[in-house]
């Protein structure tokens, strides 16, 4: 959904490594990267302001007491910072929401990998009518907006007695993460040289062994892209949880945040504290594994 894309066929079959941006040896010698560019520098500073002002206002407001927030200037730094708002949020079941989102993300990633990898492998390795059809199905599936099927999915979920459970969120989210995942994987796997397969075939390797000992290791870059992509779908998912769940039990973070709008209302500090907290876990991941995250995301773009 949010990041749906198609991997483009590469004019130059490129690296399958997980760092597609890895500096080419001569990269730093490019003259256009060496010279200072004052105009561009200015533009980037402007964008920095656009990025930072909302973040600053958010952090600052989240440390302000509600009374002050209703009267003071939201851009002035808090005079007497307080963590009360964070307490308010953490005491509203925030951990539970986060836990649910983590479960959904893990499950979605697991399902997508288990189903998409063999599928992409077949699509690349087995050229017949059926694998071609399967591939086409997913090619078209890329453009099906999840919103469009939410009503019939609701009917399906209700009939399966999955309504108001985490599975009701996990299964459709995984299904809708599959098209892009399959295309990304196909894009990566088809760059694995035929000779390598043939060499293994000569050794009498089974297709399974080729998958696990050749294709999967060679497609590490694509797989990490799929992991990040699928996890992002789960992380961002809003509509499925909104329609398919109702009670506290299976409530995920995005829906919890949405409910805070009516729960906290113009208690803007608490509302913003919840936004900050929702970003903390993934921000931690970003700090620890920025390269992997960024590299994987570039893979969503088919690069």
């Amino acid at each position, binding site marked *: 959904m949010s990041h749906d894309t198609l991997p483009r066929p590469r004019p130059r079959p490129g690296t399958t490594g997980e760092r597609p941006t890895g500096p080419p040896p001569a990269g730093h010698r490019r003259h256009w990267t060496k010279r200072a560019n004052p105009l561009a520098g200015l533009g980037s500073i402007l964008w920095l302001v656009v990025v930072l002002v909302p973040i600053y206002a958010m952090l600052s407001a989240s440390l302000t007491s509600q009374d002050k927030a209703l009267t003071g200037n939201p851009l002035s730094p808090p005079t007497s910072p307080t963590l009360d708002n964070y307490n*308010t949020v953490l005491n509203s079941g925030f951990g539970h929401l986060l836990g649910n989102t983590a479960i959904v993300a893990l499950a979605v990633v697991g399902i997508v990998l288990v189903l998409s990898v063999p599928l992409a492998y077949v699509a690349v390795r087995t050229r017949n009518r059926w694998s071609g059809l399967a591939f086409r199905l997913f090619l078209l599936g890329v453009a099906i907006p999840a919103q469009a099927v939410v009503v019939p999915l609701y009917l399906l979920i209700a009939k399966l007695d999955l309504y108001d459970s985490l599975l009701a969120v996990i299964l459709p989210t995984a299904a809708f993460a599959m098209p892009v995942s399959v295309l990304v994987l196909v894009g990566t796997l088809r760059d694995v040289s035929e000779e390598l397969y043939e060499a293994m075939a000569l050794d009498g390797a089974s297709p399974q062994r080729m998958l696990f000992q050749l294709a999967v290791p060679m497609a590490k870059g694509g797989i990490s892209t799929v992991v990040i992509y699928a996890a992002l779908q789960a992380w961002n998912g809003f509509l499925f949880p909104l329609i398919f769940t109702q009670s506290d039990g299976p409530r995920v973070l995005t829906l919890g945040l949405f409910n805070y709008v009516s729960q*906290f209302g113009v208690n803007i500090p608490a509302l913003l504290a919840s936004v900050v907290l929702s970003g903390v876990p993934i921000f931690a991941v970003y700090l620890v594994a920025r390269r992997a995250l960024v590299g994987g995301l570039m893979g969503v773009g088919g690069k």
Partner: protein
Amino acid sequence: MESINGRSNGGRPTGGGPGEGPSEGPSGSPGGRRAFSRRWVLGAGATTLLTTGLTACGSDGDSGGGGDTLTAFVYGDDAAKIQQTAVDRFNRSGAAKSAKGRVKLERIPGAEYPAKLRTAMGSPSAPDIFFNWGGGSIRDYQEAKQVVDLTDTIGNDPALKSAFLPAVLAAGGLGGRNYGIPMRGMQPVILFYNKSVFAEHKLRPPTTWDQLQDVNAKLKKAGITPFALGGADTWTELMWLEYLVDRIGGPEVFAKIQEGDASGWGDPAVLKAAETVKELIDDGAFGSKFSSVAYTNGGAPAVFAKGKAAMHLMGSWEYSTQLGKFPSFAKNNLGWCAFPTVEGGAGDIRNVVGNPTNYWSVNTRAGNKDAAIAFLKDCASRTYARALVANGDIPATSNAAELLDSSPNPEFAKFQYGMVEKAPAFTLSWDQAVGSDVATPMLTEINKLFVGKSSPSEFVSALKELK
């Protein structure tokens, strides 16, 4: 957690409707009923709705919530604490033991309540007991045979039958049958004002439209917005039209529309009301930002309490909202009065618009209907009524009058009670009186009128198209 908003934080809890969208929910009028007469609302001894028979028990209990634990969906605003207390009390009671059932309360965040209820009711994990707005809001469920007919239960239990005001009890039903037990306070729409702002500028609450315009002029001169309006929630705008149409054309105008006659929108009173709205807006009576201010997030109440706006047309729950958010304002500076008359108009100043109250209904698929009904009966108890009064509500019980003195604000409680008691006509909120298929487009048209996307005459012709 400290509740920041009043009980209305989720929207229009006890009032007009489902949070952001009365649009979404309630629909249909109780059996073609229109403006309720005073006797209809508070009249004593009405027995017309009662029939005799055995305990109502729609169908055999099965799938429903299953087991001995009954799930109850409630609109998850601050007032739900009263229902939580009632649930806890019930689960400890002998009634629960003898019915072998327990109740589990699920608070559904307000704004999405009607949609959540609908999706849950269409699934196997439907609630056994559910909060609703009576009348039109349960029509679809009644037609799908998903709500238990309580007529006989009430008829066979004199204590239950006599506990509630008959008219309010009736408004929880459809076609002369009872489907709901009143469980919250009465909800007339009231014109609230900020007493200190009025005193400072030597103003008196307006009783006529001329006075109102005079007050507006003085307030604007002083740099104060006359009315707070949470226009991001269209139902707040609806309240203005409801009262204006009543004051200009009388309660009959909407009564005709409610009966399904869309040509009723062509009544000159509707056009006049729309023009009056446009004049107010052009005049700056709601300020320039009303369309991005919401009620449901507490924006409009805050504007009102902070003295940025001097008046606020809102359901009676505004009092407890303010009590929760800005207690000192609610206690010292919150004033209230009736909506003024319009010169030459047909409507009585005592006419009221709003909602009777909210109800509990039972799902026909409930596993243990005896326990569900036993739980509902608690709403008739004096303890329950007291809890409502302590929260600033006026329960729809026949003993309400004698409890008013124990209200945190007896003066307001008595005003509200008197307002409903003396009303020659009580017009049900439009969005609940018409079907949900009409309510949503109707609210959209109202919003377009308020934001200047359609002229009063365009507004009228668009409404006439609704069927």
